């Protein structure tokens, strides 16, 4: 999880800054955070009281912008661009990177056509450059580009900020995993017990046979 280690300091810095800024300067700070090349987690900043208080003020667009970067995608921005501040190139790049993480949440194999449509990329070369230079080198995804099948096989993707409704599902999955592991452990222990019992029976049987052989030998002599 080196991506988390890398951005931990950045998150701490922007949270501290958000606690001492208000109004427009807080808005500018949000633009700076959503433009920073190594920052991909925004929940911590979203939960700073000053940021929450932007709601309903003339600067609430910056709160919406931060929410977009925490949970949204490039398509979400395009369908709401009228109500959001215009994005600088760094923000556009970051939102596209975050869009790849969202796509990787549901599928392990991302077809190029979906990616090109989702990211507004016109050709494969540009798409592959983006995936290699701006995603894999940034450490947010690891995987394999399959030119023949025109798809990107994701082996690892950094986690995005959780939407509140996702927590239940995650806990459910962890519980299932825990139960599976417990059941497996129990069945292994049962198998070990079974093997011990069988080996005891086998030894007993072998002893009986040897005793019988000895008896017969004695009776013969």
């Amino acid at each position, binding site marked *: 999880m080196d991506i*988390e280690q890398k951005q931990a300091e950045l998150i701490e810095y922007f949270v501290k800054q958000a606690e001492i800024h208000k109004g427009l300067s807080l808005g500018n700070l949000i633009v700076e955070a959503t433009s920073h090349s190594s920052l991909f987690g925004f929940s911590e900043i979203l939960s700073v009281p000053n940021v929450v208080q932007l709601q309903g003020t003339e600067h609430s667009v910056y709160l919406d912008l931060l929410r977009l970067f925490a949970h949204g995608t490039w398509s979400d921005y395009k369908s709401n661009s009228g109500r959001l501040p215009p994005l600088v190139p760094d923000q556009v790049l970051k939102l596209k990177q975050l869009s790849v993480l969202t796509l990787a949440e549901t599928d392990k194999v991302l077809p190029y056509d979906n990616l090109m449509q989702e990211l507004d990329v016109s050709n494969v070369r540009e798409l592959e450059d983006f995936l290699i230079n701006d995603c894999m080198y940034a450490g947010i995804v690891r995987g394999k580009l399959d030119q023949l099948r025109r798809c990107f096989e994701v082996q690892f993707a950094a986690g995005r900020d959780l939407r509140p409704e996702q927590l239940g599902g995650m806990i459910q999955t*962890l519980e299932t995993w825990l139960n599976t592991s417990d059941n497996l452990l129990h069945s292994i222990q049962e198998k070990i017990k079974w093997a011990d019992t069988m080996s005891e029976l086998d030894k007993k049987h072998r002893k009986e046979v040897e005793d019988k052989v000895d008896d017969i030998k004695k009776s013969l002599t």
Partner: protein
Amino acid sequence: DNSLARQVSSLLRRLPAIESGKFQDDFLMEYNDTLLVTYLAMITNC
């Protein structure tokens, strides 16, 4: 802890580690081959 939540979310997304018809076929083939070797060993024992 948002960072931990992101890490757990990333980990869980990797499950199932591998899931494809081809893997299932290979897996079952290995399984059957091993059972066959075991069967042969039992016959050898007998």
